[in-house]
């Protein structure tokens, strides 16, 4: 995905740094626990939550099964409404399309609505390389951008920062990008929000071009839908003359009515709100071009594949494409809470990142091969997911791919990949354990050996075992295994 994540250390090493960062752990713990408790309450308010969840899953599955059909339909509807549709197979192509579209307007800067897809392809960096400045307008994205930082959460990209850190970033950085922070800026949330509002206002009023993503695209009408909380997105979606939306192909839904489900499940799952404060919808071009749509003067839709059709070809893994990016799974994940979002080395962190990134990018790199193991399989993510993605199931499926290799689709071609490097010793150990466990005679002998050697039990183990003994004592082997007790006490009856 983005260049900024290349060369990431594998998850365990990246997580080690995060676990040792007490400020980060405290920030994350506070934020995730608050939102998860609120989410739980917001969800219990709906008596038909389980049915909404099943309906959301069904709509997404249906659309994914007939994705080619709905995308063509969408293209026809957007075109009929005066918009232009572009197809991008990968990040490079999408970045090239957007850069050319911006260049054609003659502008050197764009305002951005918070969007995962543009982060996924590294659009800001690509625009910068072409001499175009991209300004993030979502408050949390602004904090990340000003702080030369990377987002660490899908919905709250600056979740790893506390208020004092944000104040410092605003004080030192805002002036370099536009209107500086007011003198004596404090760390009160209202003060911070006001500073951001003033800083951004200038940009909204000046910008001629905006770049966005979309939460949903309606195939039947060609309508684009953005859910947000702040209203900054709406400013970008309505003020500039040209709007370029980069959207993953999995975001299409068949009809307007389908939105009804997600209008209920998405806000409750993400911000624990009953309804998101701003829902902006636009279809094709607006009245300034004499069209009867309600969009801007010029509208371009860039449909992004970037590994999605390959993911769709995998019968277990494809359910990850149901994701509506609500971030509920991040907020309940005990691993995310300790490791932080950056350890995942992707714009998609947490449980969904652990299954999405290795599918979109492949399992070739160290970080991608380690992500399916970045979970205890506790199942909390599956429990909260509003579209019922069985994340643990996909994790196991991807672990298998990493450990054993197997069939995958890459750029539309079915290939068999080999096991990831570095698993030789583990494979041998798994095999040895299986051979032992398959032969009760050998197992019994092994258990007795363990019992006899109980006095020799070391406090620290060498090699991979040291990972256990660094922080925990080993279990004490018993005097005799259970099967020996059974043979002695109840043997006559077996």
């Amino acid at each position, binding site marked *: 995905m983005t260049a900024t994540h290349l060369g990431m250390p594998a998850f*365990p090493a990246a*997580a080690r740094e995060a*676990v*040792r960062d007490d400020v980060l752990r405290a920030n994350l713990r506070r934020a995730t626990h608050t939102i998860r408790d609120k989410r739980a309450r917001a969800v219990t308010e709906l008596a038909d939550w389980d049915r909404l969840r099943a309906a959301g899953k069904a709509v997404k599955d249906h659309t994914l099964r007939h994705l080619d059909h709905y995308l063509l339909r969408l293209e026809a509807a957007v075109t009929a409404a005066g918009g232009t549709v572009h197809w991008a197979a990968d990040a490079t192509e999408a970045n090239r399309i957007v850069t050319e579209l911006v260049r054609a307007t003659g502008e050197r800067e764009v305002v951005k609505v918070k969007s995962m897809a543009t982060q996924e392809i590294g659009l800001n960096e690509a625009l910068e390389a072409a001499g175009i400045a991209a300004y993030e307008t979502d408050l949390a994205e602004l904090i990340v951008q000003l702080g030369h930082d990377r987002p660490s959460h899908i919905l709250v990209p600056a979740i790893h920062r506390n208020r004092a850190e944000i104040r410092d970033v605003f004080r030192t950085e805002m002036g370099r990008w536009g209107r500086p922070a007011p003198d004596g800026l404090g760390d009160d949330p209202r003060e911070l929000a006001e500073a951001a509002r003033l800083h951004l206002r200038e940009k909204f009023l000046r910008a001629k071009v905006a770049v966005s993503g979309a939460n949903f695209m309606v195939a039947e009408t060609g309508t684009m839908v953005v859910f947000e909380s702040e209203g900054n997105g709406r400013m970008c979606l309505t003020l500039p003359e040209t709007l370029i939306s980069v959207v993953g192909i999995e975001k299409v839904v068949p009809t307007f009515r389908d939105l009804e489900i997600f209008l209920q499940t998405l806000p409750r799952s993400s911000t624990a709100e009953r309804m998101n404060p701003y829902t902006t919808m636009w279809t094709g071009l607006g009245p300034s071009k004499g069209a009867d749509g309600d969009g801007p003067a010029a509208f371009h839709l860039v449909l992004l594949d970037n590994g999605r059709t390959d993911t769709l070809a995998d019968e277990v893994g494809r359910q990850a494409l149901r994701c509506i990016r609500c971030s509920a799974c991040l907020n309940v994940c*005990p*691993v995310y809470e*300790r*490791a932080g979002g950056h350890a995942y080395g992707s714009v998609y962190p947490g449980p969904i990142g652990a299954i999405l990134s290795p599918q979109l990018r492949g399992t070739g790199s160290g970080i991608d091969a380690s992500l*399916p*193991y*970045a*979970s*205890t*399989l*506790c*199942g*909390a993510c599956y*429990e909260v997911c509003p579209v019922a993605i069985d994340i643990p*199931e996909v994790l*196991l499926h991807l*672990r*298998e*791919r*990493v*450990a*054993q290799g197997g069939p995958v689709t890459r750029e539309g071609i079915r290939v068999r990949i080999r096991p990831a490097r570095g698993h030789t010793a583990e*494979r041998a150990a*798994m*095999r040895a*354990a*299986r051979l032992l*466990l*398959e032969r*009760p005679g050998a*197992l019994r002998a*092994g*258990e007795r050996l*363990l019992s006899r050697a109980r006095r020799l039990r070391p406090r620290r183990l060498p090699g*991979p*075992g040291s*990972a*256990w003994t*660094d*922080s*925990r*004592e080993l*279990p*004490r*082997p*018993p005097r*005799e*295994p*259970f*099967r*020996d*007790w*059974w*043979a002695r006490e*109840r043997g006559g009856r*077996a």
Partner: protein
Amino acid sequence: MRAALFVTCVNDALYPRTGVAVVRLLERLGVAVDFPAAQSCCGQPQYNTGYRYESEPLLRRTAEALAGHPYVVAPSGSCVAMIREHYPRIGARAAAEGRGTELADLAAGLVPRVYELTEFLVDVLGVTDVGAHFPHTVTYHPSCHGLRALGLGDRPRRLLAAVRGLDLIELPGAEECCGFGGTFAVKNPDVSAAMGADKIRAARATGAEVLCGADNSCLAHLDGTLRRAGAPLRTLHLAEILASTDTTATATEGKHPR
């Protein structure tokens, strides 16, 4: 009634007292217990680490060893979840790979007969008061597989609440994972240790004497963390509490620390 005990490999090798407790408990409740000696491991370590092919022979062994028993009881939620959730998946994948339906058939034959201990007590035997006596303060950690994969609900708590002399204290954040996660504990040791430390902090804050669980793998991780920290709290498998009576209560105390 007769039931076969699937003791699980971890309990067989490291926690035989849990197996002994299940045998004594079930016998006390009038159940004749069999121990099919050909059993070994359900294959969970292999499967959960990504070695599906290595788990297949263990599926076969487990299903064959436990064949013919109308009730199979295991004192481990994660092993029961392995059988119930993943055996059918392993069978289906093998069939999809053109290797026949043998594994799928074995899985289908085994799954409906396997019970986690508290399910067997509450659902099959219909008891919540098992006649136990354990005069201690206890806090209960519901392991993730029991809680979410099996949906054990309040069965363990109801069983504990009926134990004479036992004072059950709620564990704050009980539903949060302890950080064991099988090979996760060695693949991601830092996160695992941080999670374990948070769990024992919550458990110690309850002031209970005993941290009870129904999965010895999680307890091994928590017990190891507690002992490294030198904390006075001790861990105990639910079966051992349910097996204790007036006569055994003093014997279980302190004499055989885990």
